[in-house]
């Protein structure tokens, strides 16, 4: 039984804490229970069922900390892990960045757990994958996909009286559908906390229609184009940027958030005025835990407002150095948009390229956040508000910072990964070469 209730977790953590002799002690207990099916060539390739639970103890004397973990839960093992962490602490070098533990906090409970998702079995998964295979087989297409579900609990307790618990479920599904000739390919991915929102049949139909629609792509010259990025494509680009909202690397002068001459670009107009980004762990569409491992409260945080950088993430240590409040980062990112659908964005486009997703994005220059990567699984030419024909995939070299300065329009945000991202229309997006890949 890898999933403990709040009370069960609390009882184990209290017991472990009672064995501690350190000046301060921090314990985390987490477990997960889940399974997956992987399929390709219209048949299951691998599948598994995995269950794990771990306990970690960090003991500190002065600024010397030792950490030990264990996955056995009898009293002797619990005593052993505490003792081992204390011994390691004695041997460890001083950590000048050690922060004293936080006391009790009042954490909100986030709607991260869903009973139906937790109840999934190997048969549920087989049935869901069966629906996806039904679509590809019926259309004489070939599917490769992955379905995974997990229930997870996380809990922490420390010697200053802090306790936090979160239980969450997740089900994720992705499928690539290709035509038999290998000339067309479509893709979709989705994840939810709630199983009821996951429709593998409908999603597979979208991927299948892209597989057929993208066949026979024409080559057009690389260069600067207006692009309509589907939320998945937009999210691929932005994920790299969000990781750069870190105050320390900005202060140290080694990030795109660093200012010439020193300092950060906090407060600067870095993006178009229509760019607004926040994160909120209580957002019912993209819920996440309301606390961090070191006991910080995670609250709604505005990162960008009307294109101006409003917040950078500060660890407790760095916040102390800079005399500001710590700001934890959070994965429940929401980029606000408008009410338009993807179709509306296409309709309003005279000439442009529709991008389903990007692939193999890598940083080229961290200074400007220049990224390179390729389009994949459905790239189309738009003229006079209509999709005219599929085009061959492109390599791009583009910075998301430049991209968010060239925003023409934003559509309605949808869940993409762990965030909510709108489809977007961007002008002057830089494609640098063609790829033969389908």
């Amino acid at each position, binding site marked *: 039984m890898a999933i403990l209730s709040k009370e069960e977790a609390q009882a184990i953590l209290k017991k472990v804490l009672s064995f501690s002799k350190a000046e301060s002690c921090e314990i985390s207990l987490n477990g997960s229970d889940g399974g997956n099916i992987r399929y390709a060539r219209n048949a*299951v390739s691998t599948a598994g069922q995995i269950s794990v639970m771990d306990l970690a103890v960090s003991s500190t004397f002065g600024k010397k900390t030792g950490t030990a973990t264990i996955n056995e839960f009898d009293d002797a093992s619990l005593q052993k892990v505490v003792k081992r962490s204390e011994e390691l602490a004695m041997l460890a070098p001083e950590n000048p960045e050690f922060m004293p533990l936080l006391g009790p906090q009042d954490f909100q409970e986030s709607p991260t757990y869903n009973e139906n998702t937790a109840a999934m079995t190997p048969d549920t998964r087989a049935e869901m994958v069966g629906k996806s295979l039904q679509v590809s087989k019926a259309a004489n297409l070939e599917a490769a996909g992955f379905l995974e579900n997990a229930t997870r609990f996380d809990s922490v307790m420390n010697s200053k009286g802090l306790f936090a618990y979160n239980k969450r479920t997740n089900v994720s599904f992705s499928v690539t559908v290709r035509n038999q000739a290998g000339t067309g*390919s479509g893709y979709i991915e989705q994840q939810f906390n709630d199983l009821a929102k996951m429709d593998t049949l409908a999603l597979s139909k979208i991927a299948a229609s892209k597989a057929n629609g993208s066949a026979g792509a024409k080559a057009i010259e690389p260069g600067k184009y207006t692009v309509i990025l589907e939320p998945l494509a937009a999210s691929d680009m932005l994920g790299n940027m969000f990781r750069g909202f870190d105050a320390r690397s900005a202060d140290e002068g080694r990030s795109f958030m660093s200012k010439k001459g020193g300092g950060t670009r906090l407060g600067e107009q870095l993006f178009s005025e229509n760019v607004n980004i926040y994160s909120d762990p209580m957002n019912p569409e993209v819920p996440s835990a309301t606390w961090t491992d070191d006991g910080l409260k995670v609250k709604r945080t505005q990162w960008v407002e009307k294109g101006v950088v409003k917040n950078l993430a500060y660890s407790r240590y760095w916040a102390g150095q800079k005399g500001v409040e710590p700001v934890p980062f959070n994965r429940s990112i929401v980029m606000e948009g408008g009410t338009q659908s993807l179709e509306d964005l296409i309709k309003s486009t005279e000439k442009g390229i529709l991008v389903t997703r990007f692939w193999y994005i890598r940083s080229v220059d961290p200074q400007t956040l220049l990224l390179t990567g390729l389009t994949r699984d459905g790239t189309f030419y738009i003229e006079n508000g209509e999709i005219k024909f599929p085009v061959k995939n492109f390599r791009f070299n583009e910075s998301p910072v430049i991209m968010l300065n060239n925003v023409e329009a934003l559509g309605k945000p949808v869940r993409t990964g762990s965030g909510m991202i709108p489809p977007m229309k961007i002008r002057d997006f830089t494609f640098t070469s063609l790829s033969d890949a*389908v």
Partner: protein
Amino acid sequence: MKRKDFLYLSGMGMGALLLPDLSAFGNPIDPLQALEGVDVKIKKELADVALNAAKSKGASYADIRIGRYLNQFVATREKRVQGVANTESYGIGVRVLANGCWGFAATNKVTKEDVAKAAEQAVAVAKANAKIQGEPVQLAPQKGFGEVSWKTPIEINAFEVPVKEKVDLLLNVNDIAMQNGASFVNSVIFAVNEQKYFASTDGSYIDQDVHRIYPSFNVTRIDRESGKFQTRSALSSPMGMGYEYMNARPEDKVQGVVTRYKGRYDMLEDAKSAALNASEKVKAKSVEPGKYDLVLDPSHLWLTIHESVGHPTELDRVLGYEANYAGTSFLTLDKWKSKKFKFGSDKVNVIADKTQVGSLGAVGYDDEGVKCKKWDIIKDGILVNYQAIRDQAHIIGLTESQGCCYSQGWDDVQFQRMPNISLQAGKEKLSVDDMIKNVEKGIYIIGNGSFSIDQQRYNFQFGGQTFYEIKNGKIVGMLNDVAYQSNTQEFWNSCSAICDQSDYRLGGSFNDGKGQPSQSSAVSHGSATTRFNGVNVINTARKI
């Protein structure tokens, strides 16, 4: 090492890494406690329990991997130790074939009862999926080897070297970098020991003790006035070696525009070069885009080989098993069947080799009990073979597997992974200096940098660590903002010269990702310095 662990340490996380966070890596242990593997007798008993349980529930084939995976991480920045951790992960994974379909289950409870339960679960998973299965799995026959063992030939077990020695080395590395103009420096040593036991219903009981090591650093130089910064990372390579890799001998040093290493590594010397290089990079001239002849050092070329030769010749990609994640391959079966698909110029000879001493991929047997071997992939420029495992061998007309099966841990299912894939050195005597002498307009690239390639491995773009402009046979200075873009087949057909065996060196990936759920594997790629003619170079400078 699992990719998430590595990314955590080596990515942004490393800058913010504190000791308490290290719990994410598994069980910190007293290193000496786990150096001697679990008694083979106990493992054999557990294995038999699992295999019998699987068979009694209807499995036609079963294997079990009992694994203990030890990692050690020592991470520092400037004058500070950020983290020291010894981690251990111990458990079992059972894989079965039932009703023609694979099933897998894993548990960290290593008792006879729990091992049997996992075997039964694996059969249940296989049977549930058999209902939606198409063709049954065809497994290439494999003879049992009985009770055998294999060990990486190491001289010094990295886990036996005191942590203090490693911390002192890294702090010295940082000190030297800072003294030579670095603004920041992160340095790290990773050591891995996989103690893995494999048993199958074919009658194999294989005990292996695998070691790997990876020292690395990244130096940053900041110019506050201009707001510019440049980095230069280590020219080390992850190796299938012990701590002896850290003790470079004179014969391990390759002199030139910057010292490079083969066989063993001098981290202190490279830290000084890196700091000087980073300062030089801040002032270097921005490249003029256009066609250049590229002279690629093995410290750079390994990654191009990995991405453009290693991945497209993975048979699972060719067949479509990776279509939903890493992608497929342009090297389709018809190209191989034609026996005349010109992958590269006549000079291009690439081999797969799971037996190469010191390489990351070297083991005695793969993770489905197949003895490791060596074979041709590209012969005189022609595609002649792929990389396959037992359930794929029949597809390319083989009667036995090529031994490419690997799993990153006991709790992940094994599947096809890349063996060491290496470009063979030139047959005629040729030094780097002589190669450069004949280049009129070129760029000499050292170290791997940014990399990106499409899902069928046609179009790629690579950066590097340092770039030197070659004009009329001479190196005239350093360049910045360089990346080259090409098409795999075009690129390898533009290969015009390869230095001889005396320049051959290994590079490698410590964490190559593939599969869903994603798994990491370590693989080496050898080459000598190689020339490619007329490759498209772009300028990557932008303003934000």
